[in-house]
């Protein structure tokens, strides 16, 4: 699904990423953990092909950097869902228009279809009937849920989340994480970038594969401390476990039989 092969990214003399190999399988949940400025966002921008690697190759689905022209990169983004720390909702329009925008870019113009699909997405993130609300009328957690609705309305195969809980209070953060797990459970691969070490450890304890980005290179995260260790019954797979949630978020059910299925 995602493959980075000997990827390097330099900005002038500054090396952001170096000799990076990384794979994310279909329906996998993977966490990129690193302090701020270590290159997480650069990695996500390589995945959306907003930026291209200086060396090496990035492959997302059937799209390969270096071979994908501008039109293909646009096509790639239509297969992705992206969630940002600062939500990036368009403040000058309501939630319906924010979420419908994604469908419109994909050629969905029929009003009843737009209304149905947008309402489905909003309901799914716990904001049913809020299509006419403007972002300024929502709390941080609600904004992030609206942003997630926008990211999933077109049923992407991959969801990229860049510090999705970074600006949220603990309760909202837990709700958002729960949502991401639900989306993953429904079959989407999720890549979550965070600088929150406790969060990374909790997720690792839940069986999620956590990679540390150190000095521009990816290394598997060190084993979680005992307090965060997953229950013995949990499989060591990269997918979320079926029981015993740590901390504040509720465990999702096991992933769907076909992890590549659309949401």
């Amino acid at each position, binding site marked *: 699904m995602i493959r980075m092969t000997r990827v390097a990214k330099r900005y002038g003399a500054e090396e952001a990423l170096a000799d990076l190999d990384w794979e994310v399988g279909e329906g996998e949940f993977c966490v990129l953990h690193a302090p701020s400025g270590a290159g997480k966002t650069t990695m996500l921008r390589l995945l*959306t092909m*907003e930026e291209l690697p200086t060396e090496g190759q990035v492959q997302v689905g059937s799209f390969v950097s270096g071979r994908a022209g*501008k*039109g293909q990169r*646009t*096509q790639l*983004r*239509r297969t*992705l869902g*992206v969630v940002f720390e600062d939500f*990036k909702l*368009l403040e*000058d*329009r309501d939630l319906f228009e924010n979420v419908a*925008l*994604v469908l*419109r*870019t*994909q050629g969905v*113009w029929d*009003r009843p279809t737009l209304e149905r699909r947008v309402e489905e997405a909003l309901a799914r993130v716990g904001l049913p009937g809020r299509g006419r609300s403007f972002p300024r009328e929502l709390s941080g957690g609600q904004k992030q849920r609206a942003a997630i609705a*926008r990211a999933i309305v*077109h049923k992407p195969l991959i969801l990229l989340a860049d510090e999705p809980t970074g600006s949220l209070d603990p309760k909202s953060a837990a709700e958002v994480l729960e949502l991401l797990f639900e989306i993953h459970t429904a079959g989407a691969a999720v890549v979550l970038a965070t600088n929150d070490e406790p969060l990374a450890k909790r997720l690792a304890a839940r069986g999620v594969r956590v990679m540390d980005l150190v000095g521009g290179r990816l290394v598997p995260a060190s084993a979680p401390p005992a307090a965060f260790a997953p229950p013995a019954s949990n499989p060591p797979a990269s997918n979320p476990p079926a029981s015993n949630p740590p901390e504040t978020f509720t465990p999702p059910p096991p992933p769907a039989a076909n992890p590549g299925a659309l949401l």
Partner: protein
Amino acid sequence: MNRIGWFLREAWRGLWFHRSTTWTAMLSVFGSFLVLGMFLLFTSNVQHALTGLGDRREVVAYLRDNADMESREALIARLDSLYGVAEYVSKERAWEEFAAELGGTELLEAAGQNPLPASIRIKLRPEFLNFASMERISDALAAAPIVEEVKFGGEWVQRLDHFIATLRFVDLAIGLVVALSVVFVVANTIRLAFIARRETLRIMALVGAGNGFIFTPLVLEGVIATGLAAALALGAVQGAAAFFDGRPVDILPLPLAWSGAFVGGAMLLGLVGALVALVPLTRKH
């Protein structure tokens, strides 16, 4: 809402949310169009006045006294087919017309005999109503054996032609300056709009919007704002024409076709300005 409706609404949203920039640009473009509109109004009225004069432009061939009817009719038929409507004016009719212009026949009766020659008047087709054509026709006529002399008021026709040409040149020059200034203003306004909305457009690109989806509303903004400014300028010009009509001279408003071309041309300039701003940006995105 269909695609076109959505693009139009996005354009309107952009104009409304950035209305201070929009108004500044529209005011600047309005000023340029007002100058052009006023000059076009002047041109239109002068041209209308000159049309009346132009209609009176004719070539007159005075015939020799011994010109026979057969040669005369042959010449009239040939002139009819080549240049316009040729009409024979006999000595008697010339006498009557001259007498009517003088308001009495006393002076002519004092002359004892009719000194006026017979003539052929040619009302030329519009394509020949210029100095060069009239001179050529005059030379050709003068070579005919039955023609004594040819007159067509060469000097004033030449002056009229020169005046019209000058007027058109000035129109063109003003139009060109206005066009360049409008393209410049629109291009910079759209560039500013792009910079102001860079984050919004980046988000659109990230959710899969292509260049057409992102840039079409901006292009429409340029077209709509320029069209509105031109329509306002046109309204001011037509209002001025109505206000000053008869004080002291009659002023006709700009004809409908000119008005349509004025606003349509303005929208075209808006399109060009927007494309000048955006085409380089589409290569970067």
